[in-house]
C-alpha cells in the first residue's frame, strides 16, 4: 500500500503548496508512484478523510482552526509543518504585537464585530509536529529530502548551523561589509543563503538555530548602526512567536 498524503491549508498565502508543484514532470511521476495524494484542495476536487501523512500549511489564527488541526492530528500518522507559518508562526505573528481588537479595527473599521481572530501560532503550539519543512517558501530540494526521509521512517538531516556558513560557501560578500544588516548569523541554514545570493539580506524565515547567540547578533546589528528598537523590528518579522504569543 502506498501511503496516503493530504495537504491542508490554514492561515497563509498558500505559496508553499503551489511551490510544491514546481517539481519537474519526472519528479511528479516519481512522487505519484511513491504516494497517493488524497487531499489537495488547491488542485484537486476529490477529498478523503483517510490519510497517513498530513502536510500543514499556514499558521493557526482562529479558534475554529485549533479544532480542525487537532482533528487532522488524530487522523494522521505523520504530521509535517510545511513552511514558515506552520513551522514558526511566520509573518502572521506580527499581528500578535497588537491587541486583537485593534487589529480587527484597523482592517474592518466599524464592521470588526463580524469577524474573529486569535493571536497567530505555529502548528506545534497546538499539536505535536513530526517533521518540519522550513522557509518562506521552502526550497523544493528540502521538501523532497523530507518526503524521502519520512517515507523511509528516518529523520531528515536539516542543518543546525547559521546561514553564514552557506553564504560563505556561495561566495557572497558579507551583507555587513556592504553596509547593510542581516540576520544570517543566528538563522538556520539550508536555503543556500538564497536571499543574500540574490542581492538582499537574511530576514530569518527558517527560524533560529538551536542555541542561537542572539545577544551577540544584537550587538553586531547595533554596531552596524541599528538602534535597539530597530533590531527588535528586524527579528519581529519571523521570530517573535515565543516572545509575544501566550
Amino acid at each position, binding site marked *: 500500500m502506498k501511503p496516503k498524503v493530504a495537504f491542508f491549508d490554514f492561515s497563509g498565502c498558500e505559496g508553499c503548496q503551489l511551490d510544491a508543484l514546481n517539481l519537474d514532470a519526472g519528479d511528479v511521476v516519481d512522487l505519484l508512484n511513491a504516494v497517493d495524494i488524497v487531499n489537495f484542495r488547491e488542485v484537486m476536487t476529490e477529498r478523503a478523510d483517510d490519510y497517513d501523512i498530513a502536510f500543514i500549511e499556514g499558521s493557526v489564527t482562529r479558534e475554529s482552526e485549533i479544532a480542525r488541526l487537532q482533528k487532522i492530528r488524530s487522523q494522521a500518522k505523520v504530521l509535517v509543518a510545511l513552511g514558515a507559518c506552520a513551522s514558526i508562526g511566520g509573518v502572521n505573528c506580527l499581528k500578535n504585537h497588537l491587541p486583537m481588537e485593534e487589529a480587527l479595527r484597523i482592517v474592518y473599521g466599524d464592521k470588526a464585530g463580524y469577524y474573529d481572530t486569535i493571536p497567530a501560532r505555529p502548528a506545534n503550539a497546538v499539536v505535536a509536529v513530526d517533521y518540519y519543512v522550513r522557509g*518562506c517558501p521552502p526550497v523544493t530540494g528540502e521538501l523532497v529530502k523530507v518526503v524521502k526521509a519520512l517515507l523511509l521512517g528516518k529523520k531528515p538531516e536539516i542543518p543546525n548551523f547559521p546561514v553564514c556558513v552557506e553564504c560563505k560557501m556561495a561566495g557572497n560578500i558579507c551583507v555587513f561589509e556592504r553596509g547593510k544588516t542581516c540576520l544570517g548569523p543566528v538563522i538556520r541554514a539550508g536555503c543556500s543563503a538564497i536571499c543574500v545570493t540574490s542581492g538582499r539580506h537574511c530576514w530569518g524565515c527558517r527560524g533560529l538555530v538551536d542555541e542561537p547567540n542572539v545577544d551577540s547578533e544584537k550587538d553586531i546589528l547595533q554596531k552596524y548602526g541599528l538602534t535597539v528598537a530597530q533590531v527588535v*523590528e528586524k527579528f519581529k518579522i519571523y521570530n517573535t512567536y515565543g516572545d509575544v504569543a501566550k
Partner: protein
Amino acid sequence: MKSINLKVNQITRVEGHGNIVLKVSGGKIQELKWEVTESPRFFEAMMRGRYYEDVPYLASRICGICSIAHTTASIQAVEAAFGIQPSAQTMLLRKLLFNAELLESHVLHVLFLAAPDFLGAGSVFPLLQTHPDIVVMALRLKKLAYNLAEALAGRKTHPLSCEVGGFAKMPDLKELEAIRKRLEAALVDFDTVVGLYKGLRIPDFTRETEYIALKDAGEYAFISGDIASTDAGIIPLSNYLKVTNEFCVPHSTAKYTRHKRDSYMVGALARFNNNHKQLLPRAQKVAAELGLKAPCYNPFMITVAQLVESFHAAEDSINLIDQILSRGVATEDNAVKPKAGRGIGAVEAPRGILFHDYTFDKNGVLTNANCVIPTNQNHNNIQKDMEALVPLILDRPEDEIRLRLEMLVRAYDPCISCSTH
C-alpha cells in the same frame, strides 16, 4: 416543484476557502450565496511600524501565486511616496519579471485548475494518464515561467532581487538568451493549448457588468497607467478609493467593492475589454480564433482571455529580452532617501487591478496601509453572476447546477487568501 439544498464546502481548485450555498424550495430560490470563509491575516495592521524596505517583502506574503504583483505594487507605492523615478533599465526588468508571473499564473489556471472540468476529471493528476502530453507541456510551461522569474529575482514565489529603487542583482544575460529560445518554443506549446480549448464547450452565459483595468496609452497595461472603466472612462489613480468603495458583509471575511453598478469585474477579461487593441499581433489573432471579441460579457471566457494574454506575455517577453540583450545591464545605485508622504502603487495582477496605498513618516516607517486586492473586487460580481445564472439552469439536475456554479467561481480564478489579506 423543485427543492434544492446545495452546499459546496470549500470549493476546490481555487486558491483559498470559499463556499457556495443554494437553497430552493417550491421552485423558488430562497438563498444563494458566495461565502468567503478564509481566515483574515491583517496585513494592513501588520505593515504599520515596518521600515520601508521590509514593506514590499511583507506585501509579497499576501499571496503565494501573485507575490510578484504584490511586491511590484508595493515597491511602486513606496517609490511614489518617496518621489523616486525608477530607471529605464529597472522598468524593463520589472515588466519582464511581471510577465513571468502572469505566464505562470495563467498556465496554472488554464491547464491545472480550469481544464479538468472540461475534460471530465477532478484534477490534473488523472490527466497524466488520459492526456499525458498536455500535462507534461503544462509542467514545462510552468517551469519556463518559474525559471524566467528565477533569472531576474532569485525565485518566483516571494521574489528577492527586486527592491525599492531597482534591482539588487543583475540577471545573467546568457541565461536570458537561453530562456528567449524556450519562450519561442512556448508559443508553439500555447498553440497546442489553443487547439485544446477550441474543442471545449465554454458555457454560454452573459451578464454585462462594469469592467475595470489599468490603462496606459503606450501599451497593454500591467505595471503603469491610470484606471479605465467601461462605464466611467479614465479615472486618475489618485482617485482609486472612489472606484473601489470597499464594504463588509457578514458572510465574507473578504471585503466587497462596487462602483457604478451593483458590482464590477477585474482581471483578464476586464483588461481585454478595455485594452484589447493594444494586444500584440499574435494574441489578437488567437483571440479571433477562439471567438473572443470585445466587449465580451461571458465570465466563463475569462479563462480564454487568460490564454490570449499568455501569447501576449510570451511575445512581449521575447521583445523585452531583445531590448535587454542589446542595451546590456549595469548595476545601479538603488540608495533610497525616505521622506514623509503618501504613495499609491497599482498593477494588473494576473487576477486584475491591485492597489497598494501607503503613508510613511519622515524616517521611512509606515504609518498607514491600504491594499485592495483583485479578488476583493470580483467577489461581488461572482455573487451577481450566480444570481443571474441560477434561474437559467434551475431545471437541470442538481449535480449539473453544482458543477456549473463551481465552474463559474473557478473561471474568476479567485485568489481568496489574497482577498482576506
